[in-house]
Structure formats: structure tokens, C-alpha cells
């Protein structure tokens, strides 16, 4: 009786062998399966491999879908470029804000100085 784990290992080795990969050290064991059970499952695996033949999509389909997706991706790229604030826009905004703040400070300072000047002249007269 082949152990459960051993069966799993052997079946997977056999599957890899069907795929043409993973050389098996225990090929001899696979060539002479110790049990009918194992041989029956390996035989089924061969049929499954044959039945699941690779099907690739028609060239016309992949080209058509690829073009549609790429067009959509370009549209998204364009939209993001339009929506994202550019460096120059950011600079203009920061510059305008700085000027406004500086203007406010100057206006405040000017108002304070004028007020002080008025009060000083009022005291002297």
C-alpha cells in the first residue's frame, strides 16, 4: 500500500513529467507503478493533459481588445494630466499667496504707523 503523501508526490511528479518539466529521480518507480490505483490515476492525468489543449485567442481579437484598452488608457492619462495641478500652476498659486500675505502685512504696518503718527501730532498741537 502506497502512503497517501507518497501518492500525492508521485502524481504531481507525473503531472510535471507530462508538462515536460521536472526530471524525476524516481522515474523507474513511475514506469512500474506499485499499485493499479496509481496507474489508473496517471492514465487519467494523461487524458486530461490531452483534453486541455492550449487555446490561444485569435490575433484579430487580441488586437481589437488591445487597441480599445490602450485608447481608454490614453484617455485616462490625458484626463489626469488635465486635472493634476502642474508645477507652474502651483508656483503661481504660491507666489500669489505670498504677495497677498506680504501686502497684508505692509498694509497693517502702514495703518499702525499712520495711527501712531496721528496720535503723536494730536498730542503736540
Amino acid at each position, binding site marked *: 500500500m502506497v502512503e*497517501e503523501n507518497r*501518492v*500525492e*508526490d508521485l*502524481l*504531481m511528479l507525473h*503531472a510535471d513529467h*507530462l*508538462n*515536460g*518539466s521536472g526530471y524525476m529521480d524516481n522515474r523507474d518507480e513511475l514506469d512500474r507503478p506499485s499499485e493499479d490505483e496509481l496507474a*489508473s*490515476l496517471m492514465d*487519467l*492525468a494523461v*487524458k*486530461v*493533459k*490531452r*483534453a*486541455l*489543449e*492550449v*487555446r*490561444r*485567442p*485569435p490575433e484579430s*481579437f*487580441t488586437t481589437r*481588445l*488591445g487597441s480599445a*484598452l*490602450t485608447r*481608454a*488608457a*490614453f484617455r*485616462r*492619462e490625458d484626463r*489626469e494630466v488635465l486635472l493634476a495641478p502642474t508645477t507652474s500652476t502651483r508656483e503661481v498659486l504660491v507666489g500669489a499667496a505670498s504677495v497677498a500675505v506680504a501686502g497684508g502685512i505692509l498694509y497693517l504696518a502702514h495703518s499702525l504707523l499712520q495711527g501712531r503718527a496721528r496720535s503723536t501730532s494730536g498730542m503736540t498741537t
Partner: protein
Amino acid sequence: MEEGERALVDKARKDAHAFGVLYQQHVGRIYNYIYQRTGSSTDAEDLTARTFTKAFVHLESYVFQGVPFSAWLYRIAHNAVANWHRDRHRHQMVSLDTALDHGVEEGRPESLAQSREEQGVLLDAIRSLPAERQQLLILKFSEGLSNTDIAGIMGRTEGAIKSLYHRTLLALRRELRDKAG
């Protein structure tokens, strides 16, 4: 996920050309997976288009989880096929490909027709297996992926994949014996 693939996916979020490359790398395998699950080239084209459209829309929210990018695409395809099966149950449509595959094979040598018929029965049995078992057989035999890749795609350990493969063959054999009566 390889660094190269990860960088490409990152780039594809914003760059149309990079998305095109990603599409070219995966479209063949996704189509094949869907074809094997549905047995219809028309439906495979439709569901492949849906899969990539969904991937395109949701790529920005894609999060790396240390598995190949294809795992994410297979999951989208897997869900698309599940929805297709649900709708198909409602409409009970028979695809032309299935009808042709399983129909009378006029003009063919008898042995070839018989082997095609056997293959049709086997494909029917495979498609009646639970979705994850079908996925395993397709990834293993049709795509020829390694156990490591399959484990990554299916979110299981390699040991679990081996065990599932064994149980899948047992279930398939049982299904075929039941069909044979």
C-alpha cells in the same frame, strides 16, 4: 512578484503603453483559462474583454500581496466565469463550440471520432468539477505552471495543491465512472 513585474504594474496605473505591455503579457493565458472553463470561443472572447476592462478600471486600487499579478487577473476571470455560469443556468443556452465538439463527426475516421467523443465526455466531466478543481487542472495541464505559481495564484500552499490534485483526479474518475454507468 518579481520586481520587474511589480514596476510594470506600478507604471501601468498611469502609463497607457505600460498597460498595453501588461495586457499583451497576460491576454493569451487568461483567454485560454476562460476558454477551458466555458468551452466556447465566443464566450471566451466576451469574458476576456470583461476581465481586462475590469482590471483596467480597478488597477489603481490593486494592492501587491506578494503573489504574481496574474493571480489577480485569474481571480477576476474566475468571477467572470462564475457569473457566466449563473446567467447560463438561467438562459440554458448551448454554445456552438460545445455542439460542434460533441456533435456527429461526419467524414472523420471512426477511431478519431470516438476519441473526440471520449474527449468531449472528459471535458464535460472536468467542467462539472467544482471551480477550484477545474482551475487547478487548467493551470497545471493547459498552462503548464509550476506548483509554486499555482499555489500563489490559488492562495494555497504547495502541499495543499498536491493534495487537491490527488482529490481532483479521484473525483474526476468517479464522475467518469458514474457517467459510464
